[in-house]
């Protein structure tokens, strides 16, 4: 019988190492799921607070005054052609339009934690509703 080449042994060894690393990377535990869910909930609750606070704009108007429980916000329809803006926009663009206009405030940066929190709350209140991007 021919002896296996050093190359084969080497490759075999490398494969085993990679396989063992991959075996640790992918499976996440129920504990992980719980932790990540809690992390989301913290941010969502922050968004709930902001949504109901009179601090986002300069005139004390709050989002919930027109959108109790974030109703009539339709996050599941974004991105869509927002006729009044004349282009396809995402939810955060509409959030910023509201902050600037009825709330007379300053727009938030796309990656502002406040924007992420608001999006988290608005989509949470609409959970379970099927996605219909583009719907007016």
């Amino acid at each position, binding site marked *: 019988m021919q002896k296996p080449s050093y190359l084969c042994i080497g490759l075999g060894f490398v494969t085993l190492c990679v396989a063992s690393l991959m075996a640790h990377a992918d499976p996440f535990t129920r504990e992980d799921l719980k932790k990540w869910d809690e992390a989301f909930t913290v941010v969502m609750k922050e968004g709930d607070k902001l949504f109901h606070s009179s601090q986002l704009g300069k005139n004390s108007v709050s989002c919930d005054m027109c959108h109790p*429980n974030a109703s009539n916000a339709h996050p599941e329809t974004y991105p869509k052609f927002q006729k009044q803006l004349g282009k396809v926009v995402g939810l955060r663009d509409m959030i910023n339009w509201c902050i600037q206009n009825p709330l007379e405030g300053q727009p938030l940066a796309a990656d502002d934690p406040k924007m992420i929190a608001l999006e988290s709350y608005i989509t949470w209140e609409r959970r379970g509703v099927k996605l219909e991007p583009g719907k007016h």
Partner: protein
Amino acid sequence: MSEKMTRRTFLKAAGAFTAAAALPVGLVEMAWGQKSSEKFTFAYISDAHITQIKGTEFVKNFDKGLQKAVFEVNFMDPKPDFVVFGGDLAQLGKKEEFEHGLEIMKDLTVPVKWVTGEHDYYLDLGKYWQEKISPLYYSFDHKGVHFVVLNSILTDDDWTYKRWPTPEERMLQMARLDNPHGSPFMVKEEQRAWLKKDLAKTGKETPIVVLSHSPLYKIFKPWNFWTDDAEEVQVILSPFKNVMVLHGHVHQILYNQIGNIPFNAFLATAWPWPYPVSYSQLPNKVPAMTVFMNRADPFKERDGTGWGYFDVNGGMLHHYELWENTPRMVRAGGKMKHPEDTEYQDPTKRIPPQEHY
């Protein structure tokens, strides 16, 4: 006033119709029982929510709404007999907000009948309102119709007197519509007893109009589109053949019929509210017969807001004077089985903007 239909053009058309012989039921003069009341018109302005930012700075949007309504009511020709204010003059019940609102309302050239709302009441439990504006509940007669004004935004004693550390906190809690710590509206025992006594002097055929801020029926409890003792109030009203409830609070076109009682909501001058069907997480009892108003375009500041008036002519024709939209009309009472939109009640007549989701 709307561009398409002024009151003058409507009256002209109505005059022409009554002269004709065989007419569709919707246009015939409907008698209220055996004794018809006189024909008259009254207007309403409701849910102004005048909001102080600080000092003499108020939210311009809401000021503009109330100013526009007052201006347009004053332009009605002929003038309405009176104007009902449907509640929520102030946003947080502050003296400054009342004074600013009253300053705008004083330009009306006809008398005002005031109905209190929760935003007016919960800072000082109606003190300013009773001292400077109006009694909280009362009745009056006008051209054969008995009007009753209720304070229908009370709630349980614990929540009112003990739950919150300050009046300001209590007001803020009641001001939030979707408040998980909220408390349902009530008319309560004392007023129900008063109502029974007041109506005991009224003939069963006499037309009665109940003016209320909360709806006096149950639509959606999480937003207090609700009156907890609605059934008890309805029992007191139901022996009367021609009774109708008109209410504020919901900031939308909304109408219903429960037994022999039609219900009609006032528009708000400040901002429109979504229909409870738009909150997907909880069930609601939005009356199926209501033809929704057009979904508000947030880019048009006054869309979904307005004022209205009622032509009382055996039954009532409710004219919704929607700004930024074609006006709507709902006929109720008299021989109507339930309130009906004069144009869109037939489901095949609906238009896309009426779809709310």
